[in-house]
């Protein structure tokens, strides 16, 4: 009879760092024995050996109970997720308008997108793009029927993409809008096209109506489907967590090559949980080849004195060695870049932002792993602005990806039920209200009453207020906002009570604008950001 394993290794092989978590089952349930991360490229076995040695030193009884013997570490069963290597898609269209539509659809996928239209590129330049070795796929589609700005060029484009597919047998081609029926396509591709016929995929035409382009997005996502990809697995994990905790759960991830936002809600009794997710290459902490726009996005969140060139230098180095410079000013820069990435993810997912605030928001990604909890909470509140109350937690052991790769939902839920309390590090809660006027409005706008274990804490609230209140991890309390004027807190009201949970950072009360308005003048903006960050960062050691 085969003995059930009493130890399990979860490996999240990210593009920037590799995280290894050691799970043990000393009795009836799995527990997180420890976790550790190292730069990508380091052998997970080397990380595991150090981790196992620490468990043996800290708790020999536990190590014995889960069979953590030297020499047997490598034989432990593993649960592995990885970050798939990014792939580039060239979106070709007959006009700037159609390319902009294609880019906006493809931006909500993990593809890196390069757009080219007949108005911006000549045919030779488009062929050059399609033949580039780093390009994995070409997308060509149009409206059905084609728009007046598309008709004149469609034959040329069909011939161009067909010829590129003929020259590169490994190139994936996504064509729609009746391109394949055009004579130029057949002439370009040839009568006996090389390569796998399945590499040429039919795509829907560009839709005119709302949501009509979800079909194209599904096709693009389908080409990247990878059961071992940790980012794609987050949706499954979110659904299992929502089902398990009976709470609305949102997971937001910022990684080296992309980001993801997954939202899940428990189903009605007997029903499966519902979930929705968007992965996007634009959600990367620092996208490849950072441009001026990215530099400005990050500069907008910094309080230091870096000029644009120096910020560009720092971002290029952060992109090149994302595992380094995690302390001091580097930590602040990293969270500034994370804010910009979160804002990009939020901008690409308006339908998820429109949902009510989730009960639990989980932040995932190495950029959140080492920073002070209050700074992480503030970064999330700065970038993901939605009224209501939510508990924030972090996946510091990076288990969500590996667990999400478990195909069987029952098995996944069972493991999550055991380790949910270990893997989610409570950062705190955020109560966010909007519509209370700007900071220059003098005087109190109401008060917050925090009731915890019979003790009551009162705090007067001013317009634009931002404050952390102590609420220990594991503690639960009721926060009541008593306002003089009606404000938006999920709905419009003057009096609302919400249940909040404690965390390392406590409770963040945020009455700033939605969307957050910062002064245009750089010195004033820095001054405002400095005041806010002073609440979250230690002041003694920058």
């Amino acid at each position, binding site marked *: 009879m085969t003995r059930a394993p009493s130890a399990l290794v979860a490996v999240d092989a990210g593009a920037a760092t590799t995280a290894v978590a050691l799970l043990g089952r000393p009795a009836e349930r799995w527990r997180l024995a420890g976790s550790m991360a190292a730069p990508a490229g380091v052998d997970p076995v080397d990380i595991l050996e150090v981790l196992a040695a620490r468990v043996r030193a800290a708790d020999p009884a536990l190590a014995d109970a889960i069979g953590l013997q030297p020499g047997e570490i490598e034989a432990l069963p593993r649960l592995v997720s990885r970050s798939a290597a990014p792939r580039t898609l060239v979106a070709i269209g007959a006009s700037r308008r159609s390319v902009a539509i294609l880019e906006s659809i493809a931006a909500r996928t993990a593809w890196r997108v390069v757009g080219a239209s007949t108005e911006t590129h000549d045919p030779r330049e488009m062929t*050059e793009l399609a033949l580039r070795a780093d390009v994995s796929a070409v997308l060509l589609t149009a409206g059905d029927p084609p728009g007046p700005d598309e008709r004149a060029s469609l034959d040329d484009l069909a011939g161009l993409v067909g010829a590129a597919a003929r020259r590169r047998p490994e190139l994936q081609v996504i064509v729609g809008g009746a391109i394949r029926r055009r004579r130029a396509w057949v*002439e*370009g591709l040839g009568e006996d096209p090389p390569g796998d016929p399945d590499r040429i995929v039919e795509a829907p035409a560009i839709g005119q109506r709302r949501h009509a382009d979800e079909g194209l997005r599904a096709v693009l996502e389908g080409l990247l489907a990878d059961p071992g990809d940790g980012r794609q697995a987050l949706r499954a994990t979110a659904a299992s967590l929502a089902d398990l905790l009976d709470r609305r759960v949102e997971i937001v991830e910022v990684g080296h090559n992309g980001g993801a936002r997954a939202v899940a809600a428990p189903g009605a009794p007997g029903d499966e949980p519902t979930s929705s997710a968007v992965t996007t290459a634009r959600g990367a902490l620092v996208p490849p080849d950072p441009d001026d726009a990215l530099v400005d996005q990050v500069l907008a969140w910094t309080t230091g004195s870096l000029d644009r060139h*120096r910020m560009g230098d720092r971002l290029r180095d952060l992109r090149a060695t994302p595992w380094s410079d995690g*302390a001091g000013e580097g*930590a602040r820069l990293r969270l500034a870049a994370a804010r910009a990435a979160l804002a990009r993810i939020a901008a690409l997912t308006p339908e998820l932002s429109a949902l009510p605030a989730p009960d639990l928001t989980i932040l995932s990604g190495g950029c959140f792993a080492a920073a002070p909890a209050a700074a992480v909470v503030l970064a999330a509140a700065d970038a993901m602005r939605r009224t209501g109350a939510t508990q924030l937690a972090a996946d510091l052991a990076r288990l969500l990806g590996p667990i999400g790769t478990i195909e069987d939902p029952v098995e996944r839920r069972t493991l999550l039920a055991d380790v949910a309390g270990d893997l989610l590090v409570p950062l705190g809660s955020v109560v966010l209200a909007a519509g209370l006027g700007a900071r220059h409005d003098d005087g109190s706008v109401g008060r917050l009453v925090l009731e915890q274990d019979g003790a009551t804490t009162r705090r007067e609230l001013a317009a634009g207020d931002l404050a952390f209140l102590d609420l220990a991890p594991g503690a639960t309390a009721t926060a009541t906002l008593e306002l003089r004027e009606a404000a938006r807190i999920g709905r419009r009201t003057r009096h609302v009570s919400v249940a909040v949970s404690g965390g390392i950072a406590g409770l963040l009360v945020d009455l700033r604008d939605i969307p957050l308005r910062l002064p245009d003048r750089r010195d004033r903006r820095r001054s405002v950001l400095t005041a806010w960050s002073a609440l979250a960062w230690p002041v003694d*050691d920058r």
Partner: protein
Amino acid sequence: MSVVGGVPAGADLDAAADAGAVVPAGLSLIRARAIVIGPVEATFTIRPGDRPLVAHGEAVVRGAPLADRLRNARTEVVGGPLDADAGIPGTEWAAPPSRRHGEAVPERGELLFQSGGRWRIGTGDHHEPLEAPFAGIVREVRPGTAIGLRSPVRAVLGREVLAGPSAGRLEVIAPRDGEVRASEIDVSGTGAILVVGAHIDAEAITRARAVGVRGIVVASLGVKERRDVLASAKRGQAAVHGLPPFAILVLDGAVRRPIASPVMAVLEAVAGCPVAIVDDPPCLVIDDAEVELPVPEPDLVRVLAGPMAGVEGRWAGLAGPHRFPGGVVLEAGYVRFAGRAAVAVPLGDLERFT
């Protein structure tokens, strides 16, 4: 000879471990940076319209033409080959001899695609040769995409290459933490690839190009200098006569720091030898298989980022989770800098060399 944890400096860690020597614990958790690679498989990008001049499996010597590149490539519409079966995208097209005198039709080009019974070709008026920067065997020819060259020689890996490829003899003109200014570059560097230390400014790069320097090897190149170089390369591309080959190999990144001492030791060993800069992979190809290259010491570590970026020391073991400025807790290791007491440094901020 320095000895750390029973392992002589310069020894192979794995071999030392097999022999029972005490290897400092945790060194394997530091990302290893390979200084020298070999054999070299370099890829040279060509674009539609460029004409490959070599075939798969062909042996080429240094300086042999690999392709005829277009400097002002454009699209033209032509009737295409007379034989319809010969009309295959990617093949070369030449104007038929029977064309009317004075007709504004290009002489030759690369067939791109057919549409409406006419062919689009990639063509241009000004050509420049793409020369093999080192000797090797052609392993791949993909018209419009790339030519691959394989060689048994070794190469020093860098972070990125701007412009190129280029070849010349290697000259070290600055210490590893130095900076070269325009006034320090003169005609003695003509035809050479210069190692310029930690940093070089845009003015010095411009002067280097002007006096015929073939390349620069530098630890770091900022965004501003990078833009200047790329703009200069673009201008050279657009000019009627073009510019001689020039390339910049950036070894580390954008923020200023010295060249790592093991890398500098290799560069110093190669000084005077013929070398080449290629961009895929980004490296300095050492076109002399005989030269003996120094091996990095296994316990040498270098700080990658932060206030101590570029400082080197000796690994002294794992420190465990450690609190650093900013209230950040990171896995750390102890490092001895210049023989002083060991200090904790985040593992992610360190690199070792292989």
